[in-house]
């Protein structure tokens, strides 16, 4: 098993980040073109805790190296199952994901948490990401190890891109919100 983890901060309030999180893979994000569809499978508010639980299915276009794709059967899209938990009273968003495709060869489990920054809880948001990657192809230790390495590398590349893309979404959301709030500003722009 290999572990990828990182943590970073966004200069936006937790409320803004938690709203934009639902738009993360939309048309505003030029950096996550590998995500081609995001579908909601279920959504409920837990009656006892008030926590919003959402199940989503994320469809990705594969950009893995050719040898990995051939090992994994040559499919060019993959599916990820994500459950998220939003606790508005505690101001936390937790996202848990696992791969649906190739799950007999590779097990990827990711947890991401958005919470208010301890240095500036009203204006900044902390993002923590941790992924556990386990290759399961029996016997072939070398291939298993290489497959895990390639997956961790992909996480590293996507983490940088993900941050850049999400920054754009946050900026666009803030702008859209301000324009909505201020008709004078909106008219001036037209």
């Amino acid at each position, binding site marked *: 098993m290999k572990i990828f983890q990182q943590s970073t901060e966004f200069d936006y309030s937790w*409320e803004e980040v*938690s*709203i934009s999180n*639902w*738009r993360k*893979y*939309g048309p505003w994000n030029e950096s996550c073109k590998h*995500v*081609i*569809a*995001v*579908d*909601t*499978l279920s*959504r409920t*508010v*837990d009656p*006892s*805790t*008030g*926590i*919003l*639980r959402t*199940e989503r*299915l994320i*469809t990705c276009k594969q950009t893995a190296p050719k040898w990995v794709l051939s090992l994994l059967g040559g499919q060019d899209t993959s*599916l990820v*199952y994500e*459950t998220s*938990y*939003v*606790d*508005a*009273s*505690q101001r936390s968003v*937790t996202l*848990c994901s*696992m791969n*649906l*495709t190739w*799950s007999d060869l590779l097990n990827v489990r990711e947890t991401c948490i958005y919470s208010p920054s301890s240095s500036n809880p009203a204006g900044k948001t902390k993002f923590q990401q941790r992924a556990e990657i386990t290759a399961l192809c029996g016997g072939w230790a070398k291939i298993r190890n290489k497959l895990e390495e390639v997956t961790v590398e992909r996480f590293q590349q996507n983490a940088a891109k993900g941050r850049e893309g999400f920054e754009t979404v946050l900026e666009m959301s803030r702008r859209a919100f301000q324009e909505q709030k201020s008709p004078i500003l909106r008219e001036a722009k037209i």
Partner: protein
Amino acid sequence: MSASLAPECNQVKERYDNCFLKWYSEKFLRGAATTDECDPLFKQYEKCLSKVLNDRGIDKMVKEAREDNRENDAEHLKPKR
């Protein structure tokens, strides 16, 4: 918002997503969510999507993942107060 994996569901998905985002930002985050007024739209979207998930055998994969995810549910749905 993002597209659906089933292009024929895109329109109804967009209507639902817009409804949800408004409800989330204006009601849920402010602690004023009593009912989910987007539910009728979700039902339409779900009806469209479930057919495709079924046809492509994705529903079975989701079912297994849901079982695997029980630990996360137990951990993250427990009261933190």
